[in-house]
């Protein structure tokens, strides 16, 4: 669950205001599209939610962690409650599909026994059966993004944040990926998808939060994104 109250973000180095008085609440189990043009503040918002940066003003709570008053050493604990997927997949090229997914479990100290049970299950969930031994560059873009989703999902996070996950995919693969995220959501994980692909957003009847110039300009359940 995410709660943002009156969040303002001004970058000290440039003095640029990236977000202004943003109020967003995302409840447990919701599927939310965050839309807006380039430079609208979407990336800043994600960075605030993952604890990479701290807001200049306002309050942010992510899965029960107070992002403004939390000690630095608590950040890893908070991050284990979220899974992040990026536009450029960010897979490790010299590791197999299996190891890329298992890596996320190994670095948080999960036992190999549990890894051997969990990784095949997640790979099956994202539709990558039989691809375990492949390396990322042997896979299509859509498949690579599924590996990234599997990795984000493998530690059973409470929320998945996907930052332009379809940015490098063709429309058919994009739709497939969105259906996968919808399926994950139906299994109980909160999903926040950041995108600027209007057609894709409009194909799903989900909640859409639109931001522009650092402000929330609309927040509706109609699943329609009309910003030009």
């Amino acid at each position, binding site marked *: 669950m995410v709660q943002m109250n009156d969040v303002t973000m001004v970058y000290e180095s440039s003095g640029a205001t990236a977000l202004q008085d943003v109020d967003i609440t995302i409840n447990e189990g919701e599927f939310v599209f965050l839309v807006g043009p380039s430079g609208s503040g979407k990336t800043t918002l994600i960075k605030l939610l*993952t604890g*990479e940066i701290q807001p200049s003003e306002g309050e942010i709570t992510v899965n029960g962690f107070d992002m403004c008053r939390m000690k630095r*050493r608590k950040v*890893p*604990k*908070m*991050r*284990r409650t979220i*899974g*992040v997927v990026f536009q450029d997949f*960010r897979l*490790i090229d010299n590791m197999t599909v299996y190891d890329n997914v298992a*890596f*996320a479990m190994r*670095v*948080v*100290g999960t036992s190999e026994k549990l890894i051997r049970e969990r990784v095949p299950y997640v790979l099956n969930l994202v539709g990558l059966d039989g691809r375990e031994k492949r390396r990322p560059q042997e896979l299509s873009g859509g498949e690579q993004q599924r590996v990234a989703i599997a*990795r984000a999902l493998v*530690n059973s996070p409470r929320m998945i944040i996907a930052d332009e996950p379809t940015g490098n995919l063709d429309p058919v693969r994009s739709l497939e990926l969105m259906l996968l995220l919808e399926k994950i959501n139906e299994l109980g994980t909160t999903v926040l998808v950041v995108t600027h692909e209007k057609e894709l957003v409009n194909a799903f009847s989900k909640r859409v939060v639109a931001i522009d110039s650092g402000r929330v300009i609309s927040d509706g359940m109609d699943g329609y994104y009309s910003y030009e």
Partner: protein
Amino acid sequence: MSFASVTIIMACLLIMGSFSLVAVNINSLIKDLESQNEIVAFVNEDYSQSQAKALQPKIEAVDNVASAEFVSREQAMKNFMADYSKDQMEGIDESVFRDRYVIHLTDISLMAQTKTALESVTGVAKVNAHVDYANDMITVRNIVSVVTLVLIVILVIVSFFIMTNTIKLATFSRREEIAIMKMVGATNGFIRLPFVVEGLVLGLMGGVLAFFAEWGLYSLVTGKIMETIAGNFVEVVPFASVATPVLLVFLGVGILVGAFGGVNAIRNYLKV
């Protein structure tokens, strides 16, 4: 990359070690000269020889006195005449000389205090001591120590930064991996550990190699010095007597520079 790190640590330790060994030798040389720096306490003229000899335990009891050797008037005259020609000495008898003690000190930096203490011993008329000379010696020794220390500090800092940079280059290719680790919630300690271990191993290897290189270099250079005419005047400190401290310092500095270099190299990647 690892080869570069090891070589650089080794080179820095070698330079550092060589300077230190030069300093150790200078120190030992000065110590040697210091021990030759004696002070002379003259006994009261009206004391008989047996009275004069009785002063020995009192003089030896003075703080900082390493040894005191009694020299009689007769002996003093003989020593004196040995340095000058006979005809210059004509008509001089030993009554001109006094009974005296030739005293060596434990610590020449306390020469002035010891001189005062000796002067207050009943039966001692006068004390001759080259306090200025002693002070000069100490100044030279201090300068050598300070220069060595400054050089060591500079070299440690230099090797630390070079180590940091070499490991940084090595970690550059792994920054994506580190970013992913951060993203999935790995703790900084967990991410740091392999880099610290890597730095530590590289530092350790650099230290061991530098030790053997230093050994070879030192033996070679001192061997050459002893072959020349200088070998007649100076005595070099044998490597065996400094080997243990050199090895320990090299390993210690290698490990510290390596481990902290590793920590420092990935600091920026851990900020996200």
